[in-house]
């Protein structure tokens, strides 16, 4: 019994270890033998050397083991800095931007036709409006107004440059199909900051610039549209009369400013504000305040109702103050001398 016990439990560690090593080497030898048999059979059956080719080709396709390069010898980010020359316009474009550029350049792809349509529409719009204005109003040819048209042209360019750089970011791209839902009630497409020229035309680049419109056109526009002049772009809002971005007060102010004090013909007139104390001078005051006032009454941005309401409350106070104080000055002065300066020639029709 003693011996039997020892046979099973009498192993000390060294022996166990030796035993483990033996088992291990048995296993390894088995693996080696297995390989030998396999190779021998392959040799005798004749398929051992089948996957080799001649020495030259072997060297050509050898596995590459250099840093910075994969096993085929190719560099990882080879195309990052490469530039291609566009066959259409012969400009050199970065490789990763090449496909979208080509799409625009060749006029294929979904967005290209939209841009083209917009451009046509805007050029028609500008041509039509500027031609009619020159007939109606001598002021268009004055030096005063050349500033306006320059400004307009500059604005267009800067808008375009701004938009080109924006195009990288899809959410701001005016042409991409992903747009905010609030825009859909209008026929045209609208950028967050800019203004539509006309509800029937795709025209995001140039909104309506009131400076170039004749009085009849202004009147007709203002009966259908909001018309509030944006502080940033100096353009009229082309949304409906009930557009949430602007208050009725703003609409009234714009109408008074543009058409004269008696022509404020808003369907829903704002009854809370003092309605009778506006005259031409106040119109000028308004104009200067509209353009140069830091706390902008007219909000062009997209956060619609909250800003509009705050502006409404803000606008009341400064209006009251200024009307009283400047009513004295402007009767004599006219012009742009009402404190805010700047080379803006107010237009009172």
């Amino acid at each position, binding site marked *: 019994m003693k*011996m039997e016990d*020892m*046979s*099973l*439990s*009498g*192993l000390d560690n060294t*022996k*166990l*270890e030796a*035993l*483990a*090593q*033996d*088992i*291990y*080497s048995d*296993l*390894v*030898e*088995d*693996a*080696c*033998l*297995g*390989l*030998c*048999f396999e*190779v*021998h059979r392959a*040799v005798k059956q004749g398929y*051992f*050397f089948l996957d080799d080719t001649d020495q030259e080709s072997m060297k050509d396709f050898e596995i590459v083991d250099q840093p910075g390069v994969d096993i085929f010898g190719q560099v990882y980010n080879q195309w990052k800095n490469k530039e291609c020359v566009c066959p259409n316009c012969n400009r050199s474009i970065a490789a990763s931007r090449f496909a979208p550029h080509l799409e625009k350049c060749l006029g294929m792809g979904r967005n290209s036709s939209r841009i083209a349509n917009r451009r046509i529409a805007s050029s028609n719009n500008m041509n039509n409006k500027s031609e009619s204005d020159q007939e109606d109003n001598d002021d268009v040819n004055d030096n005063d107004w050349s500033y306006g048209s320059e400004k307009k042209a500059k604005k267009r360019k800067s808008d375009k440059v701004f938009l080109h750089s924006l195009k990288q970011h899809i959410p701001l791209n005016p042409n991409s199909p992903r747009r905010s839902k609030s825009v859909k009630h209008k026929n045209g497409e609208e950028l967050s900051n800019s203004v539509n020229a006309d509800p029937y035309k795709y025209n995001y680049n140039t909104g309506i610039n009131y400076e170039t419109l004749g009085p009849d056109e202004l009147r007709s526009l203002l009966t259908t549209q909001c018309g509030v002049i944006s502080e940033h772009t100096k353009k009229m809002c082309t949304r409906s009369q009930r557009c949430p971005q602007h208050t009725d007060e703003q609409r009234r102010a714009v109408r008074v400013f543009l058409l004269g004090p008696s022509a404020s013909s808003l369907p829903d007139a704002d009854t809370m504000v003092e309605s009778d104390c506006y005259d031409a001078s106040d119109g000028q005051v308004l104009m200067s305040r509209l353009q140069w006032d830091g706390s902008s009454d007219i909000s062009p941005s997209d956060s619609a109702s909250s800003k509009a309401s705050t502006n409404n409350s803000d606008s009341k106070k400064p209006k009251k103050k200024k009307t009283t104080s400047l009513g004295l000055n402007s009767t004599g002065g006219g012009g742009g001398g009402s404190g805010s300066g700047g080379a803006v020639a107010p237009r009172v029709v």
Partner: protein
Amino acid sequence: MSKDSKMRATINQKLTEMGERERLKELLRAKLTECGWRDQLKAHCKDVIKEKGLEHVTVEDLVVEITPKGRVLVPDSVKKELLQRIRAFLAQHAT
């Protein structure tokens, strides 16, 4: 000493009967293939065959050439892991 040999025989028998031996074999083969041992040895075989001549190579030739090299070429990690498993088995079933 016969106690030892008897004991060894018993353990080996247990190893085989319980299927542990087969499992260990498969584990070793898989690990060796994974780490490239097999390809290295095959390349060595090619040299041996080219040396001895394709027609006249025998199993014995190969075994004699390959086995010692094969034993040496096993990577340490594989060796350690296998020994660990064996020891675990022994600890469980030898005492």
